[in-house]
């Protein structure tokens, strides 16, 4: 009976202060929402990948060697920790399909028991099937291939025709691309039996690890057993690494921005709740006087915190977990070929965040309650003595203070008197500005990075990739019709240093090269002779500095080339080692054989010339690649959009909540002003001016942390091969500031309309 009445009081209180309670619910929801959404996406991606890799037995090593014969296969299989091995042939071949369509053909010598394709349609291959093939799903869809269709591929002037037996996806081809962006119209993959295409030499061994074996140790052992092999593990395998990176990105994202947003929301909720309790002291006294037990009263007030925070936090977690991952997933699979979508349940950390919301709310409530409960009932029944006005420091600077108008003095004193509330509003505004700058800045940086890379780092217009049978650099540079031509040689190499081993790109540039700007901030820097230039991110990954020694293992060569690091260069998109041609030739590790031609200012005949060369594999235009790269970073963009949304919502709720709190607590003051004959406009102007001071300082001081946070978050979600510097544009900063300011101003304007509704009679009569 007694509790029933209290419950009614709780309900009535909540209805009366509906907006205040709603804003607490909204804040709690926003706090858990961002976390649950990103955490859900991260786990969904991770679980799907792990399951897929596990069930379809993804290789742990891709070993490329001159010949994957019986002996090498046995050597790998004999390494302790290696579970299974399989020899394969692999090559990018042209198809007979109309247009310039090529496929990556992988031929298995034996059963497809490593990287088992996942069948979508049709049937898998029999081991002795010499005519059949399996085709990648998106490629098949793009070209209308179904089980039973025929598909021809060209190898060494000969044409092989295969019958499509099945349409599949493969765990080793999450990312299907020979460039930056997947384009199923132009590129896909084909799985066949080795016996179906004997002209293709077996040059690859895929191997899996025993459960629990040490990956690095096994890798070292394989490298020792097969000195001329290039061993690629999951962290360097392009598709697998990129898929893992995407999952990692979501995981990293989960722990900075959402946690920050959560912290801000929690801070504001706690302030609001503690003020609500302070404002309830007389009622608390009345309940005490009526004979309610301390426990009843405490529990009653605890429900003030429990109900809205539990409701909000739960709502945020559920909505976050069950909606957004599905949207973000779409952005993710835009580039990645995922087999299916597994939805793990709400994770323990997400639950923890939910529970923490409730615990924090109840904690602060208990704390405020205790402070009041310590007072005697009689003291509670008396109105809390109004907080003393105090001389503030500024007043001691008389010459300044005396210049302030009466209203300004009043505003400044008010701000100082309600330090906590002013400060919380200030922090709220600051954080919102910061988060909006961050979310917009992330978007800017991603765009800027693509543009900078393709227009500044690379200062050529065309790049022609060459196959193995390339001529000499001089012949191209002389022959081609263009303003300037420079050949480069790129090789995949294994870099070893004390800090670890990485498979990266070795780029050999002309001594006097002008087409790659590798200095800091896309400035030009010449590559010195005799030493290696290592990219900044790689030095960080391997813990290197200028003067350290690195060893380079070229594929098929067990004699490493040792270098002292002479320079640190900057490439935001790919990491590796740069040498100039003289340094390379002094190594005597082979001729300088161009693998690509960089062309600036191509002449009219240039393209015809390139097309006439058999050895030209494909042609890239950096100007077009900007878009491709931006598209690749779309997964990031979708997350940033989500973050912007959350930051805006948070800004709105915080401004509203703090404004409302201010208004509720000062109704009496405003009523007095009204009675004294202040016009509504004058009172509104006072409130608005006060708010503007807080908002302006919050906005201004939020700029710098916002810019910093862009950098922190970008670095947390860049792949190992990337170095993403934060570069928010002035425009974004201005937008963030203006938006936050306008939000705050707008909400205050709406709130101050309530001045009209203040009932002077009511406000002045009762003290509470």
């Amino acid at each position, binding site marked *: 009976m007694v509790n029933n009445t209290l419950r009614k009081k709780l309900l009535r209180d909540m209805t009366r202060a509906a907006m205040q309670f709603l804003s607490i619910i909204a804040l709690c929801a926003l706090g858990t929402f961002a976390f649950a959404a990103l955490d859900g996406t991260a786990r969904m991606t991770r679980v799907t990948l792990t399951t897929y890799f596990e069930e379809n037995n993804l290789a742990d090593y891709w070993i490329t060697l001159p010949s994957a014969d019986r002996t090498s296969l046995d050597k790998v299989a004999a390494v302790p920790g290696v579970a299974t091995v399989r020899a394969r042939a692999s090559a990018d071949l042209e198809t007979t399909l109309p247009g310039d369509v090529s496929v990556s053909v992988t031929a298995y010598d034996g059963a497809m028991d490593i990287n088992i394709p996942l069948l979508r349609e049709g049937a898998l291959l029999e081991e002795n099937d010499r005519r059949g093939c399996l085709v990648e799903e998106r490629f098949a869809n793009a070209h209308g291939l179904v089980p039973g269709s025929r598909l021809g591929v060209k190898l060494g002037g000969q044409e092989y025709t295969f019958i499509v037996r099945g349409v599949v996806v493969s765990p080793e081809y999450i990312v299907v691309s020979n460039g930056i962006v997947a384009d199923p119209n132009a590129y896909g993959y084909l799985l066949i039996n080795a016996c179906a295409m004997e002209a293709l030499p077996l040059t690859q061994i895929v191997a899996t690890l025993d459960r629990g074996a040490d990956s690095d140790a096994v890798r070292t052992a394989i490298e020792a057993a097969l000195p001329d092999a290039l061993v690629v593990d999951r962290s360097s395998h392009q598709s697998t690494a990129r898929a893992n990176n995407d999952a990692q990105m979501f995981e990293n994202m989960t722990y900075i921005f959402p946690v920050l947003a959560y912290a801000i929301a929690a801070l504001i909720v706690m302030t609001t709740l503690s003020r609500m309790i302070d404002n309830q002291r007389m009622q608390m006294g009345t309940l005490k006087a009526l004979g309610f037990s301390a426990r009843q009263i405490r529990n009653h007030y605890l429900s003030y915190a429990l109900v809205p925070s539990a409701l909000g936090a739960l709502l945020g977690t559920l909505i976050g977990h069950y909606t957004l991952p599905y949207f973000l997933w779409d952005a993710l699979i835009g580039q990645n070929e995922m087999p299916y979508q597994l939805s793990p349940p709400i994770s323990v950390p997400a639950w923890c965040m939910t529970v923490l919301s409730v615990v924090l709310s109840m904690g602060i409530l208990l704390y405020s309650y205790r402070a009041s409960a310590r007072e005697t009932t009689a003291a509670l029944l008396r109105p809390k*003595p*109004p*907080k*003393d*006005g*105090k001389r503030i420091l500024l007043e001691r600077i008389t010459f300044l203070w005396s210049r302030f108008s*009466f*209203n300004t*003095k*009043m505003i400044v*004193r*008010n701000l100082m*008197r309600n330090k906590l509330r002013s400060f919380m509003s200030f922090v709220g505004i600051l954080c919102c500005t910061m988060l909006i700058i961050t979310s917009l800045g992330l978007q800017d940086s991603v765009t800027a990075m693509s543009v900078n890379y393709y227009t500044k780092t690379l200062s050529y217009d065309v790049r022609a990739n060459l196959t193995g049978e390339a001529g000499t650099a001089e012949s191209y540079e002389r022959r081609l019709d263009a303003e300037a031509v420079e050949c480069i040689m790129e090789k995949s190499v294994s870099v070893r240093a004390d800090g670890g081993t990485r498979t990266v790109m070795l780029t050999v540039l002309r001594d006097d090269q002008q087409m790659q700007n590798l200095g800091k901030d896309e400035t030009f820097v010449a590559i010195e002779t005799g030493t290696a230039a290592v990219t900044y991110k790689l030095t960080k990954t391997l813990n290197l500095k200028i003067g350290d020694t690195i060893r380079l293992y070229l594929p098929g060569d067990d004699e490493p080339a040792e270098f002292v690091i002479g320079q640190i260069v900057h490439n935001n998109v790919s990491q590796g080692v740069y040498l100039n041609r003289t340094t390379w030739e002094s190594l005597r590790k082979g001729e300088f054989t161009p693998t690509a031609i960089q062309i600036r200012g191509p002449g009219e005949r240039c393209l015809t010339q390139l097309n006439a060369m058999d050895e030209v594999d494909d042609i890239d235009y950096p100007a077009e690649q900007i878009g491709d790269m931006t598209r690749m970073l779309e997964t990031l963009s979708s997350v940033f959009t989500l973050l912007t949304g959350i930051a805006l919502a948070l800004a709105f709720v915080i401004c509203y909540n703090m404004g409302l709190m201010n208004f509720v607590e000062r109704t*009496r*003051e405003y*009523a*007095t*002003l*009204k*009675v*004294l*004959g*202040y*016009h*509504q406009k*004058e009172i509104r102007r006072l409130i608005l001016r006060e708010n503007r001071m807080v908002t302006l300082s919050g906005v201004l001081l939020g700029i710098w942390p916002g810019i910093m946070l862009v950098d922190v978050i970008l670095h947390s979600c860049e792949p190992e091969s990337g170095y993403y510097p934060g570069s928010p544009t002035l425009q974004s900063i201005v937008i963030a500031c203006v938006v936050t300011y306008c939000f705050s101003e707008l909400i205050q304007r709406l709130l101050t309309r309530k001045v*009209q509704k203040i009932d*002077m*009679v009511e406000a*002045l*009569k009762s*003290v509470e």
Partner: protein
Amino acid sequence: MGYITFEDVCKYYQTGDNVVKAVDNVSFTIEKGEFCVVLGPSGAGKTTILNLLGGMDKATSGRITVGGKEITGLRGPQLTEYRRHDVGFVFQFYNLMPNLTALENVELARQVCPKDALDPKTVMEQVGLGMRLNNFPAQLSGGEQQRVSIARALCKNPALLLCDEPTGALDSKTGVQVLSLLTDVCRTHNATVVIITHNAMIAPLGNRVIHVKNGGIERVELCEHPANVEDIAW
């Protein structure tokens, strides 16, 4: 025709189906310069009368005039102007701005009507608080706070001073001080003072005592020679 007239003034509050007649058909007049006491038990409707007179509330029907101005006909901003220029308020709980000093609280009044206002410092001296100009309300006693509140009302130099239970929150000694201040004001500033109270002890001070009961006027007493504050038995 008096300075203040109430003609058949009614104020009803509608709560659900119930109509509460806070003030029902009230008519009276108050002359200029009078010290008028509106006396009645709680719930009699005296505060409603003060609210209507002060332009803080609107009458349901009837007509109120102050100095020839019809209050009942004024709209929002005009009512504000009326409160600003014509009326000074003194509240039971003082309603001082806690973060303004005593002097600044008085200056607050000058802010709204700079033309007619008296010098805040002088007024503060008049109410006997010349020494406490720079104290904040929390540093003042109840009686001192009420005197600041009176100073704030006086500073506007209003023709009409409305006091709602000005001694309600004070002990008898300080209550007497405040009352004597109010009677002085009435004499020296030639202001009309209306005091709302349930305390019958104050009644002898009034030139005119209006007894209110159950939302109506019970009777009006006139007194040519009111008692001195010092003489009333508290």
